[in-house]
């Protein structure tokens, strides 16, 4: 929304929450950053990665899942855009879509875990299995938390709590959701592709 708005008190308060959220996500990024650091350290010390004899990870289903999560993020963005235009019913619809896509992601993730587990790779198989299950599980926890938050926002949206003058309670969870999505893209690329 490229248009210039005057900084009303509400807008200034909103700005404060956005700064707070950005700092919080910065802290979160450091946490995930440390996990990637650990992963990079593990890989750089390994003679071969993946180690010999370890089953290969699938690529097709995780790729599809990445698309699902990206779509969920997109749905959330469209919901926020609708709210800014004052279309409150559309907001609820997009939020429901975002939550549904997020849940689909989790369900498919469970399928991936099950397949990989069945193929013989387990957390206790050593560093490789630890990294795979550890990173994806910590991310999945964030997705689950995100879905709960979206459902909460959805309920409040259905109750008509949000107007185009009060978008912050939708925008802040959105920032978190996009962040979780971005982390997943990094994980997908570094765990499955590289």
């Amino acid at each position, binding site marked *: 929304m490229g248009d210039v708005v005057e900084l009303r008190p509400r807008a200034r308060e909103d*700005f404060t929450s956005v700064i*707070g959220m950005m700092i919080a996500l910065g802290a979160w990024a450091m946490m995930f950053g440390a996990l990637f*650091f650990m992963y990079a350290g593990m890989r750089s010390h390994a003679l071969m990665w993946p180690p010999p004899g370890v089953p290969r990870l699938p690529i097709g289903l995780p790729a599809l899942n990445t698309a699902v999560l990206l779509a969920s993020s997109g749905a959330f963005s469209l919901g926020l855009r609708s709210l800014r235009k004052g279309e409150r019913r559309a907001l609820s619809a997009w939020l429901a879509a975002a939550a549904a896509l997020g849940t689909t992601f989790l369900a498919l993730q469970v399928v991936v875990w099950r397949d990989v587990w069945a193929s013989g790779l387990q957390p206790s198989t050593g*560093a490789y299995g630890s990294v795979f299950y*550890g990173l994806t599980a910590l991310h999945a926890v964030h997705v689950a938390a995100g879905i709960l938050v979206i459902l909460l926002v959805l309920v409040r949206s259905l109750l008509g709590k949000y107007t185009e003058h009060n978008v912050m309670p939708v925008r802040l969870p959105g920032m978190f959701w996009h962040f979780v999505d971005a982390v997943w893209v990094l994980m997908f690329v570094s765990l499955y592709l590289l």
Partner: protein
Amino acid sequence: MEQHIHPEPKAFIWKYVFSIDHKVIAKQFLWTGLMFLALGGTLAMMIRWQWAYPKTAVPVVGALFLSHTGGAITPPTYTSIFTMHGLIMIFWAITPILIGAFGNFCIPLMIGARDMAFPKLNMYSYWMFFASSVLVILSFTSQLGAASAGWTTYPPLSTNVGAPGWGQTYMALAIFATGVSTIMGGINYIVTVIRYRAPGMTWFRLPLTIWGMWLTAILNVLFVPVLGSAALLLSLDRLAGTHFFVAGAAVGIQGGDPMLFQHLFWIFGHPEVYILILPVWGIVGDILSFFSRKPAFWYKGSVFAMIAVTVLSAVVYGHHMYQTGMAPLLGLGFEMLTLAISVPAVVLFVNWLNTIWKGSLRLEVPMLFALGMVFVFGAGGLTGLLLGTISTDIYLHDTMYVVGHFHLTMAAASFLGSFSALYFWFPKMYGKQMDQNLGKVHFWGSVVFITLVFGGQLVAGYSGQHRRLFEPYQYTYIRHLAPLNRWTSFAAFALGATQLIFVVNFIKSILMGKKAEQNPWHVSTLEWTHCASPPIYHNFDIVPTVVRGAHEYADPAVKKKFGRDYLDQVEPGLSAVDEDSSAGMPEPEAIGAE
């Protein structure tokens, strides 16, 4: 920017328990922190007892908690004791007292805000901390003993192999939980200072205390998550059977790497030492100026020095790992960056000395503690040079010298700084005066015995005594150090006993201290000049407009016009004509604090 005024809660539970008032939360952190300080101190006394009289019954505490061995400390109990002592002192005593209590109390009051930016988050931060405290206590009650892998929690010691049972797991989770609390607090501090400074409170008019707290909050938000990650991965190793840090025969060739934990730990761990000292530097910078009745010497220099230390602290962690087979070139880089920290540290130090130079020193209790901090920090900083240098560190690493060094900087300096703050802001917090004479006894006892205890450790380490030994004197080359250790222990017991004077003073003053004036120290910052003692619920009825920095002292023209030697941060001050007469001041550059 103006914050709206929340209605004051009336019910006890919202007023004192789940309060969103930063002043109440500050007191909650203070009390919890002091309790843990007592607990951590008791554990320290037990370590010192073991080193003075190995394997004999510990008086009092032994009868209470170690009855199954007749009161003596066994090797597993001993490892638990020094592990829990370190973790408790760092995360559950100094952090909550210095950052939780005084960060919360001072930031809104000193910048002219009505509360933190996110008061509810502030409340969650305390209760998260409380939850982590419960986990600490649970660790003590666990069947196989409390955590025992050292405060650094290195694997393989901290894996299920090295430390079986729930004690270590509880502590890993507790570290994670207290980390979350710290991050929540940090977000609040950063945003509050950015957004809620009173009109006219520019960045270079902020008291140094606020700069210290703000920079610490930034380091917390950046690096505590890294510790959180490490604690989380360790917990997964312990609970979910992963092998991030488990290597060797137990897992075969595809095991994890315990060294990675050390990296993650010290990426956090080095900033942590500055996290615990930056607020102290800020507080001491202010208090030295206030009680010398002089402007803080080269205020901007101190600010930039603190910023420089904050930045450098992020890139020196390797100096904790010289002994781990690190590439020599990398070690050299870490060595140079580490020694580079001396430059801003010396800037701060020289500024402190110049601040008190030729000042009219008022040696009241907060000032004494601030001067004590300058002394022990100087000693601690100088001994650190030998550890930052690889060639000397190789000899001194893992000796008592390291223990003496980091206790002087992290423990003694933070301890004296915290007590400087406590004696200074106590009248504002509780609206009561503390007994100054008891305070002085507390100070002299603390500073003398601290020097003896940690000085004794430096000497023992330099003579070759390894740290953490259960029974050092079983080695012939250490045996002759037994008398030194015993005397060090006596000093430690005296240090512990001295703290009882504080306990008496603190409780007595809260219950029946004399009522404090609004500005008993006659200083210039907002919390003293524009808030009652204790402040009202929303701090300021009208948020004042600030016109100058926090260190406006010793101007003869001000003395002539107002009959006192300082200007507060708000009052109009001298007219333009009168201001010219201040041109003959001894330190004109320091007056440019605005």
